[in-house]
């Protein structure tokens, strides 16, 4: 039932509206709204009950193991939420003067410094609102760098064919054309193809490392040399940073600019789709182009840098300073982990992934890159299962919901047939991983014994498989009473 269907004309919440009082009204008659907005008229209890019950129709990290590859669904510590929502932090207006927000700005400055250390970059801006905006920023900075040097012939950005869709989409938003580099059988970018593709038109290469296939790009130092020798720059997509956090720094791999996904690596909540934060880090030669604002220190005080401080900045990405509340959460997380905790993240994320990979292999699953170590994630291919039983990766994913686990990422990366991309994260225990393996073992067995059970899953969720074709052909995107 929709909230609108609970609605009854005349139902109000007097507690929630300002007191009725005769007030001045100078809105011209012609501009006064005549049509009544179709918002529900429900009691507070109705609303609370409705949305509480809706929440219970969701899987979430707080309720289920969520091994979504590339999403890093680690535990979101409650302290981060509590402290980011202290009343004074919540009440502060973005245009309030800097001296009324030194507490807040100190947290952000310290976060900048910690992210510099973790990435090895010379400077960091917290402005981008999500990974995709971080990618746009990084590519825009690469463009600004080349243009400042009069190098306008560089019109191409290279991406691996396994890249996340935001990579080519962001490059195009910056006015570049995109060229894809193929991946080899071991899951790495084909070095020979990269060599052949670089040239005077190359502005840069966007890479994830470990790659979207879950394996480390072993020839990264060779790739770095190839691109830099051709005059291009290197962009690091930090989506998989969790695999190497505390162990390897993107700057040491030769990257010139990068973004982090705080809603992945720094445990800020996914919130059903967002908000995230995508801070960018830059090596010294790209520092002048960072987006505004940054937090800078003036003696003992902090303030937001502006156009006067960074005249070559690629500009602003949002009206204010980015997703400030998300940044505070990431700050608290980083402080709770500290030096030793952050150093352990990559280790235990990798341990969990390799353990899960080896247990799933023992259970009879086919790993996409059997000769490779798992990074913090790995791909399983169900191609043979489909050939033998007709059961697909989609079917297995849906059946996992019945077993009380959220499915891994399916059908990404596209290069692996019937792909499941599995990322446990470091916050899951061995017991949880073992239970997941057991569930997968059961599904494998069901696929052979009773495939229809798996093909028609899920059976126990609030709804079963949805008619997505109908949803796209007969668009019903807003409730419209007949």
């Amino acid at each position: 039932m929709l909230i609108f269907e609970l609605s009854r004309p005349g139902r109000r919440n007097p507690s929630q509206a300002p007191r009725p009082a005769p007030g001045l009204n100078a809105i011209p008659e012609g501009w006064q709204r005549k049509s009544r907005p179709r918002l529900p008229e429900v009691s507070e209890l109705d609303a609370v009950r409705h949305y509480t019950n809706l929440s219970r129709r969701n899987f979430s990290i707080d309720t289920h193991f969520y091994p979504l590859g590339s999403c890093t669904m680690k535990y979101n510590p409650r302290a981060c939420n509590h402290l980011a929502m202290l009343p004074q932090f919540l009440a502060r207006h973005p245009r309030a003067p800097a001296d009324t927000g030194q507490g807040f700005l100190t947290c952000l400055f310290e976060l900048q410094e910690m992210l510099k250390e973790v990435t090895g970059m010379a400077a960091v801006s917290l402005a981008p609102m999500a990974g995709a905006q971080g990618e746009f920023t990084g590519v825009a900075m690469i463009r600004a760098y080349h243009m400042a040097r009069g190098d306008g012939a560089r019109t191409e950005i290279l991406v691996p064919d396994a890249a996340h869709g935001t990579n080519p989409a962001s490059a195009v938003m910056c006015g570049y054309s995109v060229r894809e580099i193929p991946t080899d059988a071991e899951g790495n970018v084909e070095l020979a193809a990269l060599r052949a593709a670089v040239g005077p038109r190359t502005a840069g290469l966007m890479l994830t490392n470990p790659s979207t296939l879950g394996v480390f790009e072993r020839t990264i130092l060779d790739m770095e040399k190839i691109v830099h020798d051709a005059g291009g720059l290197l962009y690091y997509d930090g989506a998989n940073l969790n695999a190497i956090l505390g162990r390897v720094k993107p700057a040491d791999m030769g990257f010139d600019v990068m973004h982090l996904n705080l809603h992945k690596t720094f445990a800020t909540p996914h919130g059903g789709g967002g908000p995230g934060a995508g801070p960018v880090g830059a090596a010294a030669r790209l520092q002048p182009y960072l987006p505004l604002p940054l937090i800078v220190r003036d003696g003992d005080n902090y303030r937001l840098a502006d156009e006067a401080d960074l005249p070559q900045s690629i500009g602003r990405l949002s009206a204010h300073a980015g997703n400030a509340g998300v940044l505070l959460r990431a700050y608290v997380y980083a402080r709770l982990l500290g030096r030793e905790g952050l150093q352990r993240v990559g280790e235990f994320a990798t341990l969990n992934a390799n353990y899960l990979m080896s247990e799933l292999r023992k259970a009879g699953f086919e790993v996409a890159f059997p000769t490779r170590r798992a990074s913090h994630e790995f791909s399983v291919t169900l191609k043979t299962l489909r050939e033998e039983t007709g059961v697909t990766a989609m079917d297995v994913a849906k059946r996992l919901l019945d077993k009380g686990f959220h499915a891994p990422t399916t059908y990404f990366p596209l290069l692996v047939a019937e792909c499941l991309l599995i990322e446990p994260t470091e916050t899951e225990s061995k017991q949880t991983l073992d239970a997941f393996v057991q569930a997968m073992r059961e599904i494998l067995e069901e696929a052979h014994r009773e495939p229809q059970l798996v093909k028609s899953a899920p059976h126990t969720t609030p709804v079963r498989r949805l008619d997505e074709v109908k949803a796209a052909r007969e668009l019903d995107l807003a409730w419209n009473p007949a």
Partner: protein
Amino acid sequence: MTTPANLKYTKSHEWVKQEADGTVTIGITHHAQEMLGDLVFVETPAVGRKLKQGEQCAVAESVKAAGDVYAPLSGEVVAANAELADAPEKINADAYAAWMYRLKPDHPGELAGLLDAAAYQAIADAEKH
């Protein structure tokens, strides 16, 4: 389904039918619609638009993918199949009957460079994941 022998093909999964009046009719192949899945939306090029060979000019969209459709030849669009706006699934039902658009070719010589049924079938078979 066998690939009709009387049509020509492109590597990008378009079929081309030569009409008696010198125009060509273009659609996407059975293999293409199979890969895309149930189509939910089709966009055809505007009548009168001039296309270069290889230019992207139409889209066939399913729930999980959006397939770009290209011009197999250079020419001017003389007709587009209006039925597809309300019933994109016609392509799924019979990809070779549900044409997308018709072109008046600028250089009929370009036809010779297209693939025949056997060559296209080989490509389609190799692609089966």
